[in-house]
């Protein structure tokens, strides 16, 4: 079947989609957007987190056909058109919040959704709760928390 979906602002068409296929597979294998990562395929790890109509979701659990006519924003769509990194991405780089990098795209999208919806700097408990569905197997959580706090402080002008 055919799926029409707007990704990072651009209308896209995927053909020959199998009806049981996930949005994640369509993004990575049919639309050339490998930013969202494929790991657990059961919603446990958060590596595939993308925005679907502005709401962060696990792309592995969205049936491709459910994205028909909807808007998806992936980690590739966070930087500006000119290539300037989003402040959350910059904070991850500065804080060394990236080890092997596999969980990073999902964490950045999920952290971005927290900072976008939050005025001021979220409490640590709130950050942890918001990121509870994103696993980092390099155990880099402390640096990741540093990065989220830094990005939030900068957004709040602190």
């Amino acid at each position, binding site marked *: 079947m055919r799926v029409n979906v707007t990704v990072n602002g651009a209308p896209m068409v995927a053909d020959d989609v199998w*009806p049981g296929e996930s949005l994640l597979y369509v993004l990575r294998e049919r639309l050339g957007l490998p930013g969202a990562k494929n790991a657990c*395929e*059961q919603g446990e790890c958060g590596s595939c987190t993308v925005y679907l109509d502005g709401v962060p979701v696990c792309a592995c*659990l*969205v*049936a491709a*056909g459910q994205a028909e006519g909807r808007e998806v924003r992936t980690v590739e769509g966070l930087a500006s058109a000119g290539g300037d990194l989003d402040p959350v991405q910059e904070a991850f780089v500065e804080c060394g919040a990236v080890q092997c990098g596999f969980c990073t795209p999902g964490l950045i999208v999920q952290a971005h959704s927290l900072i976008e919806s939050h005025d001021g700097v979220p409490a640590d408990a709130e950050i942890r*709760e918001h990121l*509870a569905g994103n696993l980092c197997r390099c155990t880099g959580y402390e640096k990741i928390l540093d990065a989220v706090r830094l990005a939030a402080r900068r957004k709040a002008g602190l």
Partner: protein
Amino acid sequence: MDFLRATTWAEALRMKADRPDATPVQGGTDVMVEINLDKGRPKALLDLTPVAELTEWSVESGNIRVGAGVTYTRVITELADRLPGLAQASRTVGSPQIRNRGTVAGNLGAASPAGDSHPPLLATGAIVEAESVDGVRMIPIGDFYTGVKRNALAANELIRAVHVPLRAGPQYFSKIGTRNAMVIAVCSFGIALNVAERTVGTGIGSAAPTPRRAVEAEAFLAENWSPGDPEVGRRFGELVAAAAAPIDDVRGSRDYRVHALAVMARRTLGWAWEEHRRTS
């Protein structure tokens, strides 16, 4: 496999009548896991996410009618004051990403004994609104669960909504798991006090082939209405544990579940009574 995309509720009912073998899908947090891990392959998926009617909730004669497309995130942010037990249980589901997609109706459709929605729905006496081209059926929650991952829906029926009684007193939900996110309950318990009527509702999760009430514990407390009495609380816990029929499995042992249920029942009763004393 076929992909059926319903855009209105009437169309969804017609599609389900034509294709009773189609699996309805909302958030996909159960259905897509089965497909991704090749544990099951439905003949067809019936996508209900475009059906706008399902994403609404309303107040109807003492109940909140929660549409089948209302996500856990919305139960938490929009209904916590009126359905506190269901909102607490919703907070323990998966992760933010899962709660942004998953629905109470999906939990009912999957009918896993471990589903987090079930204890508060049992404790409050919710009613499942099922519909097919033949008409609407209102199924009391106690009649809905028929076996492990089985429910009372006919092959041509879909869940339209679940009707949950408005809060009539303190409600609590408690769940045992190995961490605070992405956890399938080892066992869980929901309680709803109705102080004016001196009754209590209960719901046990993940400790029997289906979610179930602890009927004898409810009757005991109604006959011995001293929820603040430690001895009454202890006996209430024992009776809740006695109502369960857990198994040993990878998440926990039978004995642990029985013990934990007695503790959770006693504690949630204590929390509920404390809240009542504090606010009355």
